[in-house]
């Protein structure tokens, strides 16, 4: 290994980057747009779900219940209808996702038998939204229901404690507001860097083959390992800038609390970037066309990183076969690491297991990439 050759290659790559604006655009613009697109596009919190009400009683009780819906941040009452067909039409036109129907004998049943059904109709074309909306609706109704029970008990003059022998005092750690953005955005940094990093290096070797410069390069005494390190070094520098950019957007723009240390972040991010850049380089060595290598890199990084990394979809809720597959998805280790650094302030010892996995991955990719490069035209 000669430092002189490493330097010559790294300088040459930097010149390519400077003269070819495409790689700079991939390098700087892609992370920026993706952070904002995914950052705003992907959120699991539902706010202001449009609600249509059909109050068939129009009593003090029924209006009080509907006021609870209106007061909830999760719902927004957009329509009040007076007939059932109008309600169906409102759902059909997607004017609302949820309809609340209060029966005509609502108050009567409450006072007479102490209970009354309330109908909630959900548009389940998006089952995830429907599920979440149902949960919120149940909470609103049961909240009102408890109020009614308390009123009744107060009127009978009985003590509260006797009815509620146990009470859960919940405290939410790490993401106190249960804001889904806080756990999605750090993972998003992993997804974006996995995508961008592999794209950057997927072009470096295939470009030399396509332009015919590789034939001369392999006639020189340059070693495969020197070529790899010399080519990866400038992209590692560029990716550091990108990663810093993404992390700054996460912390400063989206306001995700950062509780870890910059040192832990730097060490783990570098490790992850080596894996990502190494994968792109390996593909570039194996597939000697720029288009081919960059398409395969996109395919190999986008789907696993978004679906199997646990950045949005929790891994422990996946079928066990799929869970086993996720061990191959290097992004999952960095998703785990970066969420922990941001929200829990974890240090390196606490993250030893995912860091170890990344280390093994990095070593394997680097060795494979150096070996896959053959200095002949065969």
């Amino acid at each position, binding site marked *: 290994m*000669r430092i*002189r*050759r490493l*330097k*010559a*290659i790294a*300088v*040459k790559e930097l*010149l*390519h980057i400077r*003269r*070819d604006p495409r790689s700079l655009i991939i390098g700087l613009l892609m992370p920026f747009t993706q952070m904002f697109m995914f950052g705003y596009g992907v959120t699991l919190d539902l706010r202001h779900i449009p609600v249509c009400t059909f109050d068939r009683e129009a009593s003090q009780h029924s209006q009080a219940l509907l006021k609870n819906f209106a007061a909830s941040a999760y719902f927004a009452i957009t329509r009040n209808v007076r007939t059932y067909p109008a309600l169906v039409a409102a759902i059909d036109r997607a004017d609302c996702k949820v309809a609340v129907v209060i029966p005509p004998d609502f108050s009567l049943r409450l006072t007479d038998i102490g209970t009354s059904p309330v109908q909630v109709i959900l548009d389940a074309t998006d089952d995830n939204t429907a599920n979440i909306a149902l949960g919120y609706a149940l909470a609103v109704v049961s909240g009102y229901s408890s109020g009614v029970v308390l009123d009744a008990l107060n009127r009978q003059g009985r003590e509260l404690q006797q009815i509620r022998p146990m009470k859960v005092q919940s405290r939410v750690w790490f993401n106190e507001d249960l804001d889904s953005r806080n756990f999605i955005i750090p993972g998003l940094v992993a997804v974006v860097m996995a995508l961008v990093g592999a794209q950057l290096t997927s072009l470096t070797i295939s470009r030399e083959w396509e*332009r*015919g*410069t*590789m*034939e*001369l*390069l*392999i*006639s*020189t*005494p*340059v*070693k495969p390992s020197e070529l790899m390190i010399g080519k990866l070094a400038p992209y590692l520098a560029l990716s550091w800038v990108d990663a810093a950019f993404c992390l700054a957007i996460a912390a400063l723009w989206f306001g995700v609390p950062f509780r870890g240390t910059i040192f832990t972040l730097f060490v783990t991010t570098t490790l992850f970037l080596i894996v990502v850049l190494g994968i792109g380089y390996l593909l570039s060595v194996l597939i000697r066309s720029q288009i081919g290598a960059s398409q395969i890199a996109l395919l190999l990084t986008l789907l696993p990183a978004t679906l199997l990394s646990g950045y949005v979809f929790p891994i422990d809720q996946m079928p066990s076969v799929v869970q086993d597959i996720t061990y191959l998805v290097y992004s999952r280790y960095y998703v785990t690491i970066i969420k922990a650094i941001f929200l829990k302030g974890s240090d390196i010892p606490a993250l030893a297991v995912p860091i170890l996995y990344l280390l093994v991955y990095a070593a394997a990719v680097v060795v494979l990439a150096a070996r896959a490069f053959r*200095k*002949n*035209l*065969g």
Partner: protein
Amino acid sequence: MTSPGPPAQARNGDQVVADDLVKRFGDFVAVDHVSFRIARGEIMGFLGPNGAGKSTIIRILCGLLRVNGGRAIVAGIDVARDPEGVRQRIGYMSQKFSLYRDLTVEENLRFFGGIYGVPRADLAGRIRFAVDMAGLAGRERALVATLAGGWQQRLALGCAVLHRPPILFLDEPTSGVEPASRRRFWDLIHALAAGGVTVLVSTHYMDEAEYCHRAALINHGRLIAIGSPANLKQTALGGELLLIESEALGATLAALRDAPDVLDCSVFGNALHILVRNAAKSLGELPDYLAAKGLRPGHMTRIAPSLEDVFVQLIAADMASRDAAA
């Protein structure tokens, strides 16, 4: 430029030894049992049609292709055993231009200086030498993409000699270059050879064979003739050459095909080139032979063959023998 002839008696110091090289791509035999040697300071020319196997042989010698048979020794090193050792001692210009077009003249030179580990203290001087040699003084900061073909090729040569390799492999370095630039390029090659550099250069310009100390003619992967230009002209044809002018080219050609002692004849401009066993004998006999057939040829004389004559004849003979074998 006249060629001063190959340096004499350098057989022990042969810088390039090809011994029975065979290279197949699938069923296609690209190199078919080729053997030759090149002495130190010698300029060996590879001639032959496109696809004859010239580039393949050069790539084998550079360690870029593995052989299916035979052995290549370059600078005393077995290419198959220690390709890296060979690579440090050779300079290579590939057929397709392979410098970085998006880098400047100087950036390319610096890059190859770094790759070959040219001592830092020497680098500036070597770069200046290469720039002057290529005639690119004052254009060090120009992007290579903006240079004309001849300049690009001279820069490629400059990059190839930056580490002062004892052996140069130049694959069609003058292809697509205008005649004046080609001439200048050959001057550079001769200057390098005079300094002791061994040069193997391929070309498809037949006239460039005259610039080589020795030339090898390659067709269908086989080496069909090798020797100095003068030697090739004298012996490779296997006969002597006559020129016959005639009003009735077609009829004369047909008649000569069957004439005694005529080995071959072909139309060359508005005259015929006739290959015969003995020029003096045929000059005496042919006028009568043609007159008997009612033909009255014009001026008839013995001529010295050009290398082009030699190559055309050799390739035609090679084709005929291949057809006969098939």
